């Protein structure tokens, strides 16, 4: 139990540290990959908390998605290599305030929300996965299918953004 708490704290601190690195670096790629490793550390926290599927999924999906974020940042941000030493921090006061408020809100929710009784026995990873599947096909089917629709909307929006590009060219020339 104590080792579990120790690793949980260690990965948590790593996640926070990588989160800070996102803003401390000048390079866009470093920034994006720092965010990735922050997310990976969160995935490791899930593993420590014995939520295996969630943890592995987080570790897997973030690797590809943050890499795609990296390429889009390199594509669209000024000076992605950090050669001009541009500062990553913008609108400090506003973001500081927003950060503090969000932090307090998260603390508040975690402390005051009714989480129900704590589970005494952690189901095995296989069981968790199975239960999740049954949940998806049973009670949460509507949520599941509407997630499909949301993804469809996202795809259409993404396509609209992606195919805007050639149209722009005609404007420019």
């Amino acid at each position: 139990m104590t080792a579990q708490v120790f690793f949980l704290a260690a990965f948590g601190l790593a996640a926070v540290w990588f989160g800070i690195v996102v803003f401390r670096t000048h390079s866009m790629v470093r920034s994006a990959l720092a965010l990735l490793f922050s997310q990976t550390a969160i995935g490791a926290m899930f593993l420590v908390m014995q939520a295996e599927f969630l943890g592995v999924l987080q570790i897997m999906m973030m690797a590809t998605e943050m890499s795609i974020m990296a390429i889009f940042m390199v594509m669209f941000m000024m000076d992605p290599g950090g050669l001009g030493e541009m500062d990553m921090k913008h609108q400090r006061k506003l973001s500081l305030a927003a950060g503090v408020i969000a932090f307090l809100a998260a603390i508040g929710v975690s402390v005051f929300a009714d989480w129900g009784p704590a589970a005494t026995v952690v189901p095995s990873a296989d069981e968790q996965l199975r239960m999740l599947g049954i949940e998806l096909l049973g009670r949460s089917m509507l949520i599941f299918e509407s997630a499909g629709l949301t993804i469809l909307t996202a795809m259409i929006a993404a396509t609209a953004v992606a195919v805007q590009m050639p149209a722009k060219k005609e404007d420019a020339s």
Partner: protein
Amino acid sequence: MSTLILVLFLLLGTYFVAVIEEWSVTGRLRPAGPVRAALRLLGTESVLARKPDRLFFEVAPVLLLVAAILSLAIIPLAPGLIVTDLATGALFFNAALAYVLVALIMGGWGPDGAYAMIGGWRFLGQLIGYAMLVVMPITAVAMRSESLSTVVIVQSQEQLWNILYQPLGFVLFALAGMAMAFVPPFDLPTGAGDLAGGVEAEYTGVRRLVFRLGRMVLILSVASAMTVFYLGGWLGPVLPGWAWSAIKILVVTALMLAAGRALPRVREASFLAWCWKLGIPLALVNIFLVGVLVLVVPL
């Protein structure tokens, strides 16, 4: 004991992959080749670029090796002969190998060299093509075995190997796996005549040695995954389980690398087009077919 066997498997496997890899390039089998090359690299200077992102440059080869080794941890060689039998093994395999991409992007960006950088970003494009073709066939495999555990997946093939049960999935997974291990003809990030080494171009000496090691373990890992998911893993008559695993993995490695010798390197644009316009629809068809099969013929 089993730990020792697994370490031995890792070492021997890497060695054999290196021998086969050299054969696939030079056409000659030289058993001492990998050892010599490793010693040469160990004794060569490991040059650091002038104004690099040093952290990236240093981390990339290590990350590649670690990701490849971790992905091997869920490969069962025989009943009981596995590092970790995770309940989400098949998913974990993917998760570990997703960091190959991260390693290549870091290694490409790190040295501030054009060939390397283009190679790294190219691999991202390649991943966008192959990634779905890795996960969708694995889903179909899991539908049959009712589990993501690699041990259960092998056991589910007791009566019929998956290569026969879902051949379409095997073809897609094999091609995607080759792209994942960036072996020819999918060696876009490191193409010799194309990018003069690409991501590998700036690595010399011991860093290159680690990079190459990671590459070999990666090939071994992909071949092992093909064996476990589709070729019945340790299943086979007469010989003990581990021997079957070893034979199958070596044969798959050799076939994989031999195919690259005979095919021209793919174009990234057409690779992406093939993957998305043909591969993904076929993978969905595969899921549907397996779905019907699983319900109708409960093998």
